[in-house]
């Protein structure tokens, strides 16, 4: 015992110890720096997007005083459909009425700068509140693209004095435009809305989820629980892993060749888009599903088998509930990627100009990322803000989707 | 026999056996010295035998304590268990053998006129038989040899026969020489003690048999 050398007291040991502590410090700081850098980049992205996009939710309007008592427009009784009411008002000359009053209040050159859709907005107000027809009201109607550009200080130099005058007089202003969220694509940046693309994204995501989730989960269950371990299953595993890494445009080509080849009349429909994206998302779900199922301890399976549960009961009563958090995580990742995919959907034709929101899974549609892509191509300055606003909508959609999935995952989280 | 995986157990068993062997050696010596003292009238030697018996008592206490400790700490099974139980009982028996020798030694001073006593010459031979039995049975214990133990049991018959003849001899002596009755009576007790030592040696032999095989020898006439 007395010959035992105290190894912790030598100088060499002290030096090594100092080095080890230094390594610890460096590692901690490097990690912290990495996190801070990532947060900084993220904040930069959010701030830039918000700053650019907030303007996209606003619209430049002209305030037009109209005295409907003088005009004698009427909404015929029994007009149920909004579309029919608007057509009726159009045939009654609402457009001219609006134009006339605008000219009276602000001058002919201002009236000419009303948006082509301005009368439709007035019609919408009337349908909403028919009592307007018996009153004198001031309606905020959208200005034309050119005037709104001039208001912002861009565009034609000739219109700028007009814009300034109207603004000073209180006719021209910038206000929050909730209609952006309920309108669809248009050629006029003042008249565009995101709802068409949003609905298209929702429908496409629903199709993707409905196809990818069950097939992916069942495939993962089969591969983990039932499939024998031989060369064929190894091959399948390798193939699925590779599929997850394939560039998304390849899936677009596949969709084009197979799905559109089979159903050519369904070009740019959410169902085709959904099927294509499902092909892309399924491998991700299978991989994360397999890992989650593998992580369920064999003691749970043994306990269930020993009680006399059949293999199916073991899987659905015991393994799947415990693997669900992991599966949902994989699904979140897959769906988030699918939401932001543009290339494959462009290939199957969801790049068209779609002016009305899709009314079903088989109607032509477009999706948020494609809409953003199309708008970013437009030259009009008004579209720049709309594009950023659309990006914000996309990010919010993603957030909601992820939030829902995380909530579901936490609900099912159980310890074993 | 293979060693225990836990070597300390083997050491404990060895120490236990050593204690028994020591007790056996002391008991054997006590028999021999007690008879020598008796025959030569050496009272000092007799006193030594009495004193040395205390050592035997101490050894028995030590064997007791060690056996209890081994039972509690080692949880012995099968032949280990039987050996320890046997050691416990054998120690008690050997201690009693020692007591008999002590008893013989105590009577040394009470014999008068030894040169004339014929029976006095018989007793050393009987004592030798008994001492041999004790020696052999403890050898059988150390060797875990049941056959040797059986053989010792059979020898008890000879000791009993010896006792019968000494008894008759002393009785007839007492009848012929009533003056020698008190001394002769002492010798009767001595012979009795030697016969009892022989019986106890067979008890030890039975325990040796049990330790080795798990059963008692049932088919030997005693």
């Amino acid at each position, binding site marked *: 015992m007395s010959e035992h050398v105290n190894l912790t007291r030598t100088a060499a040991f002290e030096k090594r110890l100092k080095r080890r502590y230094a390594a610890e410090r460096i590692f901690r700081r490097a990690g912290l720096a990495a996190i801070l850098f990532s947060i900084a980049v993220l904040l930069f992205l959010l701030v830039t997007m918000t700053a650019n996009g907030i303007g996209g939710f606003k619209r430049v309007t002209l305030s037009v005083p109209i005295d409907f008592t003088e005009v004698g427009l009427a909404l015929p009784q029994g007009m149920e459909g909004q579309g029919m009411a608007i057509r009726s008002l159009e045939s009654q000359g609402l457009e001219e009425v609006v134009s006339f009053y605008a000219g009276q209040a602000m001058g002919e050159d201002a009236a000419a700068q009303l948006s082509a859709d301005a009368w439709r907005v007035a019609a919408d107000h009337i349908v909403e509140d028919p009592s307007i027809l018996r009153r004198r009201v001031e309606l905020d109607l959208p200005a034309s693209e050119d005037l709104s550009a001039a208001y912002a200080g861009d565009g034609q130099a000739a219109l700028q004095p007009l814009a300034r005058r109207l603004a000073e007089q209180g006719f021209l202003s910038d206000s929050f435009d909730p209609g952006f969220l309920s309108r669809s694509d248009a050629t006029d940046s003042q008249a565009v809305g995101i709802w068409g693309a949003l609905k298209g994204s929702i429908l496409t995501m629903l199709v993707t989820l409905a196809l990818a989730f069950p097939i992916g989960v069942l495939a993962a269950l089969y591969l983990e629980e039932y499939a*024998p*371990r031989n060369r064929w299953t190894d091959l399948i595993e390798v193939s699925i892993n590779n599929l997850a890494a394939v560039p998304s445009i390849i899936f677009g080509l596949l969709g084009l060749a197979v799905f559109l080849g089979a159903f050519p009349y369904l070009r740019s429909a959410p169902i085709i888009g959904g099927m294509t994206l499902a092909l892309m998302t399924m491998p991700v779900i299978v991989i994360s599903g397999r890992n989650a199922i593998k992580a369920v*301890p064999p*003691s*749970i*399976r*043994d*306990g*269930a*088998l*020993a*009680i*006399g*549960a*059949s293999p199916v*009961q073991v899987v659905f*009563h*015991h393994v799947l509930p*415990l693997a669900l958090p992991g599966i949902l995580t994989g699904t979140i990742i897959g769906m988030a990627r699918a939401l932001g995919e543009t290339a494959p959907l462009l290939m199957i034709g969801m790049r068209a100009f779609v002016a009305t929101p899709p009314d079903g899974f088989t109607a032509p549609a477009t999706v948020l990322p494609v809409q953003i892509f199309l708008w970013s191509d437009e030259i009009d300055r008004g579209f720049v803000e709309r594009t950023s606003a659309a990006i914000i909508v996309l990010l919010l959609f993603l957030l909601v989707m992820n939030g829902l999935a995380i909530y579901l995952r936490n609900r099912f989280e*159980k*310890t*074993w | *026999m*293979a*060693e*225990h*995986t*836990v070597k300390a*157990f083997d050491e404990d068993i060895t120490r236990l056996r050593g204690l028994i062997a020591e007790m056996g050696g002391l008991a054997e010596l006590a028999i021999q010295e007690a008879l020598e003292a008796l025959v030569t009238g050496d009272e000092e030697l007799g006193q030594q035998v009495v004193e040395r018996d205390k050592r035997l008592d101490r050894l028995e206490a030590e064997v007791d304590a060690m056996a209890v400790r081994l039972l509690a700490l080692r*949880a*012995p*099974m*099968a*032949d*280990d*268990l*039987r050996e320890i139980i046997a050691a416990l009982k054998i120690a008690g028996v050997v201690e009693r053998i020692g007591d008999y020798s002590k008893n013989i030694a105590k009577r040394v001073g009470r014999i008068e006129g030894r040169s004339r006593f014929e029976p006095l010459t018989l007793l050393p031979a009987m004592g030798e038989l008994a001492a041999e039995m004790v020696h052999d049975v403890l050898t059988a214990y150390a060797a875990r040899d049941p056959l040797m133990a059986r053989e010792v049991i059979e020898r008890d018959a000879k000791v009993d026969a010896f006792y019968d003849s000494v008894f008759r001899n002393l009785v007839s002596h007492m009848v012929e020489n009533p003056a020698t009755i008190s001394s002769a009576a002492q010798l009767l007790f001595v012979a009795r003690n030697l016969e009892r030592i022989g019986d106890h040696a067979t008890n030890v032999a039975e325990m040796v048999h049990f330790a080795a095989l*798990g059963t008692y020898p049932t088919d030997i006439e005693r």
Partner: protein
Amino acid sequence: MVTDLPSNAEPKMRARDVSVFYGDKKAVDSVSIDIQTEYVTAFIGPSGCGKSTFLRAFNRMNDTIGSARVEGCIELDGEDIYKSGMDVVQLRARVGMVFQKPNPFPKSIYENVAYGPRIHGFAEGKADLDAVVERSLRRAGLWDEVKDRLTDSGTALSGGQQQRLCIARAIAVEPEVILMDEPASALDPIATAKIEELIDELRGRYAIIIVTHSMQQAARVSQRTAFFHLGHLVEYGETSQIFTMPREERTKDYITGRYG
């Protein structure tokens, strides 16, 4: 210690020349043994001697291992459990198993016990199920400790309680045989003693086979003991005889600690 009478009844389970292979490796070599309901039978032996593998052959849990193969015949009430057409799911309801590490389901205590009867259809209606759950928990000696918290998670119990819950779960499907694979090896002495007492109480109602590493436990808990070595059944007999006067040299070497 309870005196037991020699059994003249037909053995509950009977193994004849059973061999178990993992691929080419023979883990159990031609073992034959009778299991009676009256006795708790203990399987003892050094690590790797095949006792756990042999135990798992009695409820066909070896089937879950791909490379495992069983030869020979194991009968339950005279019927070969390895014959084709034997319903494994039903077999496992008749031959239950308790594992070394307690493995309650991550569900409530009530659900743990009720799951078996529910999937086998042994109980009709909630009242029936409640009765089964209470009876099983009482028999496992756990009722008083958990009756006020049946909805708590089964995994929130202590180790010993979890193991008794697993026993209650096994009992709930009214098995005829209970296989226990080192049920107390992960528990502290007090929990172990409770399990051993429970085994004593269950004796006679179910045929119990217990695999244990502890010879003292086998000595305390069983009436019949089988010693395994390198896949062979070396000696089988009354527990008291095995531990005081074993016939085979290998048995003696193992139980006196001279093995290896």
